[in-house]
Structures are given as C-alpha cells and as structure tokens.
C-alpha cells in the first residue's frame, strides 16, 4: 500500500511538467508545426526559474521569469520558422543544442559552477491548498504532495480541451494546420496565428521547466530535462489534438517512470527501469503507426500528416 501510494504520488509529480510541455507541443502541432525544440525551451525556463528565484528570493518571480524565458524562446522559434520560413526540424534541433549549451554556459558565468546549482535559500513552489480534501485518507496524501502547478496544469488541460472542442478559435487553429488556404480566403492571416501559437507553446514549456526545477526539487542541473521534451513530443504524436487523452497518456508515462524509480531503490540495475518510459514511447509510436497504416492501406508518416 505504501509503495502504491508512493508510485501514484510521484507519477503525478513526474507527469505535471510533461503534460504542460505536451500541451504546448499539441497546440503547435495543431497549427501544423512539429516543434521539436520543446526540450530546449523547458531547459531555459527551468534555468531562468531557478536563477531568478535565487536572485530575488521569490519563487513566484522565478516562475514568472521561467514563463517569460519560455515566451521569448517561443518568439525566437516562431520568427525563425514563420517569418523567416526556416526548416522546422533544423531550427528545432539547433535550438535544443543552443539552449542546452547556453544554460551550461550561463551556469558557469553566473554561479561559477559546472553540473548543477542549488541553494538552501530556494523555496519550492507552494503545495496545493486542499482545505477539507486534505483529511480524505489516500487522496489527501497524494494531492497534498503536489505543487500549485498541478492545479494550473488541470485548468490548462480543461481550457485547452474547451478551446479545441467548442470555440471558433479552436476551429480556426485546426484549419490553420489542415487547410491554411481556407483561412486565407476567409481573410485570416495564418502566419500570425502560427506565430502566436509558438508564443503559447513557449509559455507552456517555460511553465513546465519552472515546475521541473522548482516544483519539488529546488535545483537546476545540466540537461535536467533528460528527454522529457521528446517524450512530450512523442505523446503528442500518439494522441493528437486531444488534451484530456494527452494528460491521461502522460500519467501512464509517469506511472512507468515512478515504478522505475521505485525499482531502482530496491537494488535492481537502475538503467533498465530508467529506460522503460522512453522505450514505451517508441513502442506506442510504432503501434499507432501500424494501426494507421492498416487503416489507410498506405504508409503515411507523422511528418507527412503534419505537412499536408
């Protein structure tokens, strides 16, 4: 029972940043841009969250700084691929390398350390204010360990679902991805929509990074995203434009990852459980691919689906 509780609690904690980043990736994919720079955008958000929290002594300011850094990275990405029509993959790969190296460089320049930075003065993001729910036995314990960002994530998932499903805006965004000419004839400027969506994607990645660094740990480490951005991307490709399903799928990833953590505690070779979530993401992508191929009787790559 204790172990199950631990697994569920840490599965939620692990999922929150990935769900946030995946929501960003989902909006980007909805307008037809496969943003593989999520990883780097999370990283710069995490770095800014930690360093501004340290400098100001306020975690809230740190989270805001993470968001701003995310938005700026989204602006960079958007201008490069929309305004200047750069290749989305080249720009994505390069921005990941850029932010990976930039954060290491800034860590050295600002804090004089290599590897990781933490300080006792850093306060993690506040826990969820539960009120009466805290007294419910299991639920109270699980939710009590989550940061406020958990609630923010829930609201964003629901908001994304609502916008995607029931609003004209959601419809326009989907059309912008699938049939941009249609919007053009309706007098709507598709490039502007794509650019704004990249800002939103950047913001969500910044939030994800801030939660990753300041959610329960209070630490920035080199490459601390460790492929979470790519996992988010894989989940987006697997579930498509369905925010609620996306959150559920990510939770599945979180459970796998936290089982891995638990197994590593018991003396099991840690590498095997650690690689499980990544392997599961690849397997899921393959299964989706097989099903789609059977259904369409022809091979359509994810990229062709996007670039239609």
């Amino acid at each position, binding site marked *: 029972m204790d172990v199950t509780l631990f697994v569920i609690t840490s599965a939620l904690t692990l999922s929150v940043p990935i769900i946030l980043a995946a929501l960003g990736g989902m909006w980007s994919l909805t307008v037809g841009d*496969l943003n*593989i720079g999520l990883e780097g955008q999370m990283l710069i958000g995490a770095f800014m969250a930690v360093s501004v929290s340290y400098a100001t002594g306020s975690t809230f300011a740190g989270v805001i700084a993470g968001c701003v850094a995310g938005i700026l990275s989204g602006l960079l990405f958007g201008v*490069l691929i929309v*305004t*200047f*029509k*750069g*290749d989305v*993959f*080249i*720009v994505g*790969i*390069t*921005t990941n*390398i*850029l932010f*990976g*190296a*930039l954060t*290491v*460089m800034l*860590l*050295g*320049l600002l804090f*004089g350390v*290599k590897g990781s930075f933490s300080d006792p003065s850093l306060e993690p993001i506040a826990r969820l204010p539960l009120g009466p729910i805290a007294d419910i036995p299991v639920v109270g314990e699980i939710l009590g360990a989550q940061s406020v960002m958990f609630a923010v994530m829930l609201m964003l998932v629901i908001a994304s679902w609502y916008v995607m499903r029931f609003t004209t805006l959601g419809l326009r965004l989907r059309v912008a991805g699938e049939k941009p000419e249609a919007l053009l004839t309706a007098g709507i400027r598709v490039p502007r929509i794509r650019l704004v969506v990249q800002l939103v994607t950047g913001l969500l990645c910044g939030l994800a990074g801030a939660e990753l660094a300041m959610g329960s740990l209070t630490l920035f480490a080199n490459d601390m995203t*460790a*492929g979470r951005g*790519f*996992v988010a*991307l*894989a989940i987006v*490709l697997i579930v498509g434009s369905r925010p609620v399903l996306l959150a559920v799928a990510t939770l599945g990833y979180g459970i796998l990852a936290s089982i891995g953590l638990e197994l590593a505690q018991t003396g099991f*070779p840690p*590498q*095997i459980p*650690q*690689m499980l979530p*990544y*392997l599961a*993401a*690849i397997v899921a*992508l*393959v299964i*989706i*691919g*097989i099903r*789609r*191929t059977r259904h369409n009787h022809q*091979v*359509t*790559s*994810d*990229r*062709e689906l996007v670039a239609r």
Partner: protein
Amino acid sequence: MTQTSAPPAQREDASPALRRRQDLARRALRSVGHALGPIVLIVAICIIAIVLAGVDPLQAFYAAYNQTVSGVSQFASVLTLSIPLSVAALGVSIAFRAGMFNIGGEGQIGAGAMAAAVVGASISVWGPLDLAVTLLAGTVAGALIAAILAVLRERWGVDEVVTSLLSNYVIVLLLGYLANYVFLDRSQSNPATAVIGPGARFGTLIAGTQLTWSLILVVVLFIAIGYVIRYSKLGADWKILGQSPSVARATGIATSRLSIAAMTVSGALSGAAGAIIVMSTQERYFVGLGVGLGFSAVLVAMIGNYKALPVAIWAVIFSLLSIGGNGVEYSTGMPAEVVQVVLAVVILFIAVRREMLNTLFGRFRALRARFSRGKAG
C-alpha cells in the same frame, strides 16, 4: 555597322571562353563568401560573447592559440578529436541529404564504441584481422540501430525524428547497464569494459601524440563518400529524395529502399566513429564516452551544408574551437560551451539567411520607395 554600335560589354559576353572564365570567377568568389561568411560570424560573435562575459579577448585568444596550434602535439590533439567527429558528421550529412533526420547519433556512437570495445577485448587472432573485425563490429552496431529506425519509418510511417531522439536515451541507458553489469571489468577503478587487445588498436601516426593512422583511413573514406555524394547516381537520387520526396517518387526512384539505405549508412558511420574513439584513444567503453559528440556532429553537418569536403573542414574547425574553448575556460573561466552556443546561433542564421535578408531588405526597399514617392509628389 552593327558590330561597331554594340557596347563593349556585349562583345565580351559574346566570347564563350571569357564568359566561362567570368562565371568561374564569380562562382569561386561566391563559394569563398559561403566559406568565410560563417567563420567571420563565428569570430565576431565569440568576441562579443567573451567581452560581454568580462573576459579579456587577447588573453582568451592567447589561451586558445596555446592549446591548439602552438605546436605539433597540440595540433595533433585537434586532429585526434576531429576524426570521430568528422566521421559521425559525414553520417549525419548523408541521412539529412536524403531527408532522413537521424538524430540518434549519441546512441549510435555509443553502441559502436561498446561493440568495438567488447569485440576488441575478446579477439586476438592476427593484428590486421583484429583491427578490421573490431571496426566492423562498431560499424554494424550503429548501422543496425539506424536501420531499425528507418524500417519503422518506411514500413509504418513512424517519425524517425522522434524515435531517433528517444532511441538515444534507451541505448545510452542500456550501454550503462552493459558496462556496469554485463561487461564490467573489475580491474579498473571506474565502471568500464575490459581494455581492447593490441591488435585492435590503431597505430600511432606521430610519436608522442594520440594521433593514429585512422586519420589516413578517414581521409580515404571522405574521398570515397564525397565521390558517391557528388558524382554517383545514388548520390543524385538521395539529393532528389531529400529535396522533394514526391518528385523522387514520380521519377521512379525506389524511395523507400533509398531512405533505408541512407539511414543505415548514416548509422554505420556513427558506429564507426564510436569504434574509432575506442580503437584510437580510449581503449575501452565507459559510461559517458562520446556523450555530446552526436549533437556536435549534427552541428558540423549542418554548417558544412551536408557536403563531404566542407564537413571535413568544419570538423577540424569545430575541434579547434572546442579545444581552444577548453583552454580559454581553463585560463579565464569562460565556459567552453560558448563554442556550441555560437555555432548554433550561426547555424540558425544560415538556416534562415535568404528569407531574413529578403524580409529586412524588402522592408527597407519599401520604405525607400515610399520616401522617394513622397518627395516626388
């Protein structure tokens, strides 16, 4: 009559030999521009970054110079680093040219290194055979991983960008497990595999340095692959495939088979790069070997425009910059990662160069047009 009235410029144009020469000169000028442009940009941005960080540029330059080109052994270490980097970057180039974004270099290099380390430590028949088999083991390991990803893509449309990125984590963790549990050599202080046999090592080229004759092998490899890319039908088909898959399909190119081939060759070269590291300098696999090299190779391939000669040159420049960067870090505290940052910025600039200049100058031109019209009216 018509001859005398023709302006001299036209008469010059009439001479095919001269025109050809002018054309050649113009093209040469343009390629010099293409080659020097990024270098000038890199130097400029490096200086800006160094000054912004409050480091004395002259001291930084001296430190970089000291580490890289101040002597034979320094330059040998630059070349030693550039050998596996250039091979991996050549692999990335082939895949990217054909439109297959193989970003699994980290995993494929590691797998190649591990395979070479395991085979090299257990084989001891006859020097040259040991060497060939060890190198082959690494090459096959890399090729196999890339081939699987390529088949998944071609058979079921599973995007290779995402799977190759994710495969890095799976493979590097798996290699960590192998090095820590399965092939662990307890005689060493750090978790690592056994040291490879003497036959499986490349001989030293310059005494007292780590530079081995794998350099010669790599030069031959670059000439061969450069020829394939530039002059063979396969190279031409790859290029069409990369530029427009639909055109390739329409012209009857076996797109699926060619894509898988490009990806497999790319993985093979990454694996070979890993094997070369083990067979030249490290002599064993340990956790962390070659980490970062896969992404550096992507940068080098991009800035070298996926062509053999520029990729080779840029691999050397990148090695110069990173070893120089280490020197700068040691003497001034400026983190060596500045090299990757600057290179990434330059690549982003190159990636959008044409459109960016068009947009900026287009706006400028529009402004000027409006201004002069206003004056006229």
